[in-house]
């Protein structure tokens, strides 16, 4: 699936300081019925964002005009639960390109990397700095530099580096996906399959 290339992103952040935000919160199962990848952003955090009569819940952060931006700053163990890539799609389709947390669930992290959302894992202390900065100035810019693997709070000395595999980094910067790579090694796979009984 094609996605926008990722290089350097500077944006304000949207705070969601809850822990263990699971994929059923990111997108509830009843919205997984589509056969195309379209419109998932509308249902991002559906049950936190809207009442059952579809009116917005005023106190949820996405309904608060004070906060905006392409970076979601979330509490520990973000994305736990199911393997539904719809969760990552919903985040991308809503307009986020980067999620910052002090810990990510495994499958969710992979899903993000596969569809062009950059998961940035930082220390609990750095996460705290970001959240406090957003609290005092919702427009405070955060700079995520993928080539340098560096995240910083613009107009401050606060900066941290983050990990990403060299392979995935290449992919994100160039907008490649794994299938391109795998299709190029078709013969090698055939040879492997031939000696692997069904």
């Amino acid at each position, binding site marked *: 699936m094609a996605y926008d290339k990722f290089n350097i992103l500077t944006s304000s952040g949207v705070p969601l300081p809850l822990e263990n935000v699971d994929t059923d919160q990111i997108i509830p199962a009843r919205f997984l019925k589509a056969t195309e990848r379209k419109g998932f952003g509308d249902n991002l955090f559906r049950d936190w964002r809207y009442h059952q009569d579809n009116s917005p819940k005023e106190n949820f952060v996405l309904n608060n005009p004070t906060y905006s931006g392409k970076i979601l700053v979330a509490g520990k163990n973000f994305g736990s639960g199911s*393997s539904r890539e719809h969760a990552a799609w919903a985040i991308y389709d809503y307009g986020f390109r980067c999620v910052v947390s002090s810990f990510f669930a495994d499958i969710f992290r992979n899903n993000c990397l596969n569809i062009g959302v950059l998961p940035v894992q930082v220390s609990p202390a750095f996460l705290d700095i970001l959240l406090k900065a957003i609290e005092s100035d919702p427009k405070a810019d955060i700079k995520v530099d993928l080539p340098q693997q560096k995240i910083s709070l613009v107009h401050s000395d606060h900066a941290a580096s983050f990990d990403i595999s060299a392979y995935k980094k290449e992919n994100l910067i160039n907008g490649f996906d794994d299938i391109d790579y795998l299709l190029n090694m078709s013969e090698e796979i055939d040879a492997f399959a031939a000696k692997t009984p069904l």
Partner: protein
Amino acid sequence: MSASRTLFDKVWDSHVVRSIENGPDVLFIDRHLVHEVTSPVAFHGLNTRSIKVKYPARTFATADHNTPTINQHLPVQDPLSAKQLKALEENAKDHGIPYWGLGHENNGIVHVIGPENGITLPGATIVCGDSHTSTHGAFGAVAFGIGTSEVEMVLASQCIMQPKPKKMRITINGKLNPGVTPKDVALYIISQLSTSGATGYFVEYAGEVFRDMSMEGRMTVCNLSIEMGARGGMIAPDEKTFEYIQGRTYTPRGDAWEKALPYWTSLYSDADAVFDKEVEFEGNAIEPMITFGTNPGMGVGIQGGIPMANETKGSPSTYKKSLAYMAFDEGETMIGKQIDYVFLGSCTNGRIEDFRAFASIVKGKQKASNVTAWLVPGSHKVERAIKEEGILDILTDAGFRLREPGCSACLAMNDDKIPTGKYAVSTSNRNFEGRQGPGARTLLASPLVAAAAAVTGKVTDPRTLLETAYA
């Protein structure tokens, strides 16, 4: 390669087609399970690239997540669900994949039908676009859930690109007390390790407790590996494993069986193999468990109380938000809490052994009048066994009715939704907010605890109702 390897190393390493420097391994996938919810966009991707499924014979499709559990012989009412089912049927046909749709004798929850049909084998790599693919690890397979982009990858190339996870071993020795089931063992481990305690690891379960377990029990434990954050869990195959798989539809036979057996018996962690992390518990420390919060790590022994916020490890505000959703207070006891629904089913506890356990408690009793019970077999094969073993009669006499197979209220994509504010004792795997329906409140527990709740209408220790020791 070092001489001493873990079970996981043996299976993983033998499937690496290529190792990318500073990147993932290209891992060959023996068998790929596909269902209607996470596959349509992947097939769409293949069609856009004008490519076909590389090895249809290694791919199996079923409908389970989105299907009704009554009147399956009638057309599916929900137009979106019907469209997804139709899409899978057509995709399977276009790409030459065996498809077990609604009504097919092999139909059922993907993680129940894999083992039943011998698709799940020791030493195999198995993936599916569903996180509970970890279930298949019970047979000594490396099995894990994947996202839709990865489903597309496997359809296109039979390979997946994954960094090799770290290895953790969880050892439990000793014997389990009466009334303590594999589900309790898993909920206990998660309550100790938390829902992120095994993130980044692949878990091996070892020790007497797992050796003594039936294959069904091992599946329940491996199924829940994902709920502690692990990518998967596995148990070394043994005689029980071989006996279970022998003669099933896709199990090798004749010469192929004879050839496979010595390989399968070599699949165990070498005595001096090194794990990145080791954890040990005692079997007799485990009680029947129940959860009180909104993640599977928020569980206690059924006689216990809800911990105070200041005694818990995570953030107190997240903890309090969770209790507020459940309308529970810190310090309350769980026993005696009134409940509204009971759900027996899912890939965690929807197998025949689970129905036997449920029946052992409700036999000769009556369903409580305040309880709505949904009993949903994991597959048609389970459904048939329930009838053949006389379990259906026991359930019917006690005022219960059996539904048709599917995921049902485990994720409530179909009509089986627990209403807002209602309490459900569920044998499934997730108690997240809204998982079983918007506003639903889930208490995860074993089939025995679910049965005790179903006949008493409240949270009840099943040991007070056990007439014969649970085997």
